[in-house]
């Protein structure tokens, strides 16, 4: 996908640009808010990555300005700030996701994938399928190879999120944010235990694994 990175730290920008290109994206870099705004407004980008603190024009103002001009592309805001309300103000300004520095590269990659997919998927499916696994969002039922699997409400939401992003890497923090709606960093591997419990339920008695652990990044639901 075509990505615009607005980041004034030269070294960080170079590193991210290289990493994003290696991941198969086309990345452009803008060194300040004004240039970034002009590029984003004129170019046809799939995803914007915007640092909050930028010279010449603040990151949030860039995003708000783009939204005011009717630009709908997904925006990921990066920030070194750790204030209690930073995330809220970032999302209010028109950001779609928010990542606090420093972050793992895998986290960033996973998030822009999801952002891009979200922008593309206009209609919402009522039934998700992955291999022989089937999740019906209306009747709240899960079946594998025709056999019904009983899940707790939270397990259902966990599986729903994983299936919506089937084939994409989903990180632990993304799960905590989207399934539990909390943004803090739990000290223990609580998410891992939830996932392994879910894995037990949907894979026990079946040959093919569906829920894969991606080392150093998170999880991915994939058939085959």
């Amino acid at each position: 996908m075509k990505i615009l990175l607005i980041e004034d730290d030269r070294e960080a920008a170079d590193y991210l640009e290289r990493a994003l290109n290696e991941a198969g994206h086309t990345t452009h870099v803008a060194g300040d808010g004004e240039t970034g705004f002009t590029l984003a407004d004129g170019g046809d980008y799939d995803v914007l990555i915007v640092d909050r603190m930028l010279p010449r024009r603040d990151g949030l103002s860039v995003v708000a300005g783009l939204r005011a001009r009717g630009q709908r592309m997904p925006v990921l805001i990066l920030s070194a700030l750790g204030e209690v309300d930073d995330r809220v103000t970032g999302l209010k300004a028109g950001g779609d996701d928010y990542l606090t520095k420093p972050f793992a590269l895998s986290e960033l990659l996973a998030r822009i994938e999801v952002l891009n997919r979200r922008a593309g998927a206009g209609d919402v499916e009522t039934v998700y399928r992955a291999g022989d696994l089937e999740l019906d969002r209306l009747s709240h039922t899960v079946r594998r190879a025709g056999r019904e699997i009983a899940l707790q409400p939270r397990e259902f939401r966990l599986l729903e999120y994983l299936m919506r992003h089937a084939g994409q890497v989903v990180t632990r923090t993304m799960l905590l944010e989207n399934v539990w709606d909390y943004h803090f960093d739990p000290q223990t591997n609580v998410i891992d235990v939830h996932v392994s419990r879910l894995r037990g339920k949907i894979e026990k008695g079946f040959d093919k694994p569906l829920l894969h652990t991606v080392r150093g990044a998170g999880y991915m639901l994939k058939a085959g």
Partner: protein
Amino acid sequence: MRLPAIMKTTAARLSALYLLLFGACAVLLVIYMTSISVRIIAAQNQETIQEEARNLARAYERGGIPRLVRVVEQRARQPGANLYLIADPNGRILSGNVESLQPGVLELEGWTQRPFAYERYGDNGLGQRAPTPETARGRLAHTAMALVIRLPNRMILLVGRDLGEPERFRRVVQRALILALAFMGIGAFVIWFFVGRAALRRIDSISAASQRIMGGDLSGRLPVSAAGDEFDRLSDNLNAMLTRISALNEGLKQVSDNIAHDLKTPLTRLRQRAESALAGSKDKAALREALEAAIAESDQLIRTFNAILMISRLEAGYSAESTDRIDLAGIIADVAELYEPVAEERGVALKTRIAGPQTVTANRELVAQALSNVVDNAIKYCAGHATAPAVSIALEKTEGEVRIVIADNGPGIPAGDRKRATERFVRLEASRSQPGSGLGLSLARAVMTFHRGRLELADADPGLKVAMIFPAAGAAS
């Protein structure tokens, strides 16, 4: 205008001020007293004169001029007698004890409006001429007030009284006043010298001691005497402040030591791993493993830094915008649900006891994070320690407070260590082997302080009981 150096001391200035005040008061009082006394004496004089005049009038009625003259002669001879004078219509003195008097007095009738000068027989016996008003006033010859009466045969009768008495009285008072003022001056000086200088000396000793303390000796204390006066109270308070400062200082030192330990250790490990990976085998898998370990190590470091940052932000203060009306029961359910699999995996029974929804004004994220830190700790420490490890989360409402009580049956924290346990980076020796930033409870405490509540640690017998206490809705503004 510059004050002399001595006036720069508070004691001297106060003494001078008091001297001025008391002096002014004394002068006013004396003026008031004198004017009243003089008025009373004048009234008494008038009374006496009137009485005399009546007596003489009676004598005249009975015996005419001869009898009047006789009575006057008789009375005039008595010691300390009033003034009597009988004159013919032309003002020539016929009888009485007045030798001469200020001209014009005899032309009057009734009370003399103001004191007049006169001379009495026998005063200087030399038959001086009647004094002019100037000489009378200048030499302060006798002055008097009098009642002048015209008798039916146009003779003039004067009955008067000397005014020497009030004059004397005034002089006595004047002298007393001067004396009193002099004593007051001496008193002020004595007060300044003994009391003021004593106070000054104590203040000087306090400043000397504080200078020593400022010089770096934080263990120094201000002198406290046995008197228990305001200086001692001041010193006591300053000493308490110094104790607090040195405690904070000590805390800061402890924190830096702990940061040094908790951050330096992983940093050193990180460096060693990178070094040995560089120096060791060129095996790709081993290199990869070393790098992954390095990343995990730095993630832990970042986590610790984030926690430190967050605590500082929370300690900086409360902001109403970041809080909302939230239901604590919901958060407890969320966190319990989040931790339930972990607890089960470690063989810990995690139970909740919630009576019903409890709404408070708080930040959902922060409360959930604080609660999850405490629950995380509880599970971590009771797992493997108790025969049937259990953690319970209860939501209680008491007078003006809503508390979330998290109890475990683990090893607990000794009473003496409980206060320290919520300090930054403090990881009680027993727990140093456990993973974690050591900031869990500190963060929870910072969150509770942010919400104007508090975090309390108590004995669950056995185990630890942590209470997150919120002011009840409505109580928090």
